[in-house]
């Protein structure tokens, strides 16, 4: 929309002069446009871009809490890359993200297909299924912590009663593989609603004619899903998976509350390790270097998302 002469007419107020000129200036589309985004721009520059650059600077210095350090080049990166705990964290992050994301995608599509059906009580079921996503994660994870208690675990109690586990049942948070399984389970529990509801929105948008055509061709339920639903869901799935990749990879709450990264660092993720080293240990330089390892993943996701949006 070009700046129309009418705008200037509107600006011609009685008692013209400097005020009217300011008004006229402000009514121009580009001035008004810049003016409206200015506060957001200042905030994002000051509290996102600048801190990000600070993190980069920290990671290149031996900055400790209370002592502004000196530039040390890539020493922090060299140190952490040679550190066993860090290498373990890299492995954990990929295992955690890979398994959790796969489960969320498969179960999420399945749940969305079920929710898309015109069932009685649909709204109530959707409300129930979405609940884990809105309740504060740190608090619901406290509930899971109690459910995985070494002595009073309700999971083990039920499993033993049903004959699925042999007494006393696994020590969920004390054995590396089980602890990882527990952390993944809680992440899937919390993230599944996001997948299901978003995929559901994608499903609802698929025109019925596609299915009718497939049915006329004699396609069964599976081929309808495989050759009609899935290809049409691809754009939505791509966005959801990319989105969830970055937020699963950078998860903090679940691991911090459930295991604190233990047992022996086998569930540490970048964020929890950065917290432990940078804040609890006070080594801000190394902590920042660790958290910056989230950046390449962020970069890949941003690149793919933007490419996808542009193509739309």
């Amino acid at each position, binding site marked *: 929309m070009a700046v129309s002469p009418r705008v200037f007419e509107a600006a011609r107020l009685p008692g013209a002069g400097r005020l009217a000129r300011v*008004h006229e200036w402000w009514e121009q589309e580009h001035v008004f446009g810049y003016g409206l985004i200015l506060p957001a721009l200042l905030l994002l520059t000051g509290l996102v871009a600048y801190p990000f650059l600070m993190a980069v600077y920290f990671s290149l210095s031996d900055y400790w809490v209370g002592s502004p350090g000196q530039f040390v080049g890539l020493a922090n990166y060299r140190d952490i890359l040679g550190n066993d705990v860090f290498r373990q964290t890299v492995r954990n992050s990929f295992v955690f993200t890979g398994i959790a994301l796969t489960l969320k995608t498969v179960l999420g599509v399945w749940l969305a297909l079920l929710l898309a059906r015109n069932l009685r009580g649909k709204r109530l079921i959707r409300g129930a299924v979405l609940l884990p996503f809105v309740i504060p994660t740190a608090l619901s994870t406290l509930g899971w912590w109690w459910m995985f208690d070494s002595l009073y675990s309700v999971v083990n109690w039920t499993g033993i009663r049903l004959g699925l586990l042999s007494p006393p049942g696994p020590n969920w948070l004390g054995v590396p593989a089980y602890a990882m399984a527990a952390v993944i389970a809680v992440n899937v529990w919390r993230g599944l609603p996001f997948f299901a509801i978003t995929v559901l929105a994608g499903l609802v948008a698929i025109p019925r004619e596609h299915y009718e055509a497939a049915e006329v061709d004699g396609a069964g339920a599976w081929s309808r899903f495989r050759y009609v639903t899935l290809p049409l869901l691809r754009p939505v799935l791509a966005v959801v998976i990319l989105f969830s990749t970055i937020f699963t990879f950078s998860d903090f709450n679940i691991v911090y509350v459930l295991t604190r990264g233990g047992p022996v660092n086998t569930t540490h993720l970048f964020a929890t390790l950065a917290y432990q080293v940078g804040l609890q240990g006070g080594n801000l330089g190394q902590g920042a270097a660790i958290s910056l390892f989230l950046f390449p993943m962020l970069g890949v996701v941003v690149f793919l998302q933007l490419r996808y949006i542009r193509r739309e």
Partner: protein
Amino acid sequence: MTTGVRGRGARIRSAAWAYGNLVPFVFFALFPFYFMLVTSLKSNAELYSLASAPLWIQRGAIADHYRFLLERTEFLTWMKNSLVVSVLSTGLSLAISIPAGYSLARLRFPGVSSFGTAVFITYLVPPTLLFLPLSRVVVWLGIADTIWALVVTYPTFLVPFSTWLLMGYFRTVPKEVEECALVDGATRMQTLIRIVLPMAIPGIVCALLFGFTLTWNEFIYALTFVSQTANKTAVVGVTADLIRGDIYYWGSLMAGAVLASVPIVICYVFFLDYYVSGLTAGAVKG
């Protein structure tokens, strides 16, 4: 999905099959909340007896854990802090994102699409990437260890989110309406406030709800920037300060988790549809 010309029997069988498949999902989603509630109402004697069944209350429900929480801890202070932080930071974020969202969605000026991209990128930046430098920034600003540290930093994730969300809603307002107002002599600001905003109210309600939820639930900044018990938010207070030396804290811990979730549950029950549309708009419209 497709009913076609199948008989009634087949339809009922198919619905029963769908319900049967939904049961595990609903159970999985709700069981932890049920179990937290049950735990918070049990006596310690029952909680820590290996002979009793953990799944239900056998020896009578008691309110002791809730009484302990309200009388012997700073729980109410934490709730008040959470409320102040959520309301102020959400208000501040909306005051910034409504104009920004409108500008990016509707106005044409050089660089508008790069600004849109920048907002989108910051929307994807996880808070865990920035908590270390921000913990220094709040120290320099002299607001470390106060609730203001949170009021100031929460907009860093709320502004990108709500700007992005609102852009979608502003695009749905017909352009002709705006142009008519401008022709009638309204200034741009009047057009925005009197014409466009009322039409985008669903989007603003949605942004408010998500803002309140995201800030109420926020954990890592609240954990990192505030260490005094009296200044903590509900989520961090319950998670960090209720665990005492002994192991017999589960009752009050679960009571705290239940009570601190109540404000979110209330919003959720009344505005479920907004949550659903906000969730899909945030990711899908992008």
